[in-house]
């Protein structure tokens, strides 16, 4: 089980808005492929999947605000 965490995006950036999930809960994901897109005011940012497996839990929806360090999703072994 691997947690997908919103990493540090730069000094002064404490949160981002989740704009797009590339996969739905229950779908298989590959390490390094785009998993989720987030946006700060002038930048969009894609988080790649940290490992291959199944996107077993999606903890935030599109439009939600996520703080740096918060867990966005959980990927389980396939």
């Amino acid at each position, binding site marked *: 089980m691997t947690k997908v965490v919103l990493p540090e995006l*730069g*000094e002064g950036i404490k949160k981002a808005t989740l*704009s797009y999930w590339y996969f739905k809960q229950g779908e298989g994901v590959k390490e390094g492929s*785009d998993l989720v*897109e987030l*946006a700060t*005011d*002038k*930048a969009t*940012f894609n988080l790649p999947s940290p490992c291959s497996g199944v996107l077993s839990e999606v903890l935030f929806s599109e439009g939600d605000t996520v703080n740096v360090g918060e867990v966005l999703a959980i990927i389980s072994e396939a």
Partner: protein
Amino acid sequence: MRLLDLGLIDYNKAWDLQKETFESVKTRVLPQTVILCQHYPVITLGRAADRNNVLVDGRRLEAKEIRVYEIERGGDVTYHGPGQLTVYPILDLRNFKRDIHLFLRYLEEMVMELLRDLGINGVRYPGLTGVWIGKRKVASIGISIRNWISSHGLSINVKQADLDNFRLIRPCGMDVEMTSIETELNRDVAIADIKEIIIRKFRAPILVEQDNVSYS
């Protein structure tokens, strides 16, 4: 650093080329690249865009042959047209301490230096992204980052002639007056001259911190 000057080009074509370049830089087939171009009149909506910030209906845009594209950059609505220099830096942000704000500030500083070279005092305002001359905005920024590689970028209003089209939108969702380098200097300014300065700025060492990134 590779430079790609596309001249005056349709937004869609440049967008495709930008995506191709991004993939090649990401996979290190190509070195980091800065794309320079001008677009035929076009409106783009970033991920944070509110459609209400396009102030005219589709028919009026059609009559003016202005297309609207929803794109993957950050930010609200903007306008591009001939007379504006658009710069798309496809750079590795591992050279910017993986710091999105540091990169945005770097782009702003580049524009402010460019203006200084021309004898204009460009400023920025805390909490806002872009470059102003007094209260008038001269450069807009909106970027996208994937795998720490940037795309999209900045646009600098150079010629005065095309500024009127900004009235079709509420730029970046703000009631802001747009200006151009020509407007401020009150003389003709060639896009080629601005391009030359920008190229020089990008060729100057920009690496903030090496993060095991090496390019040919």
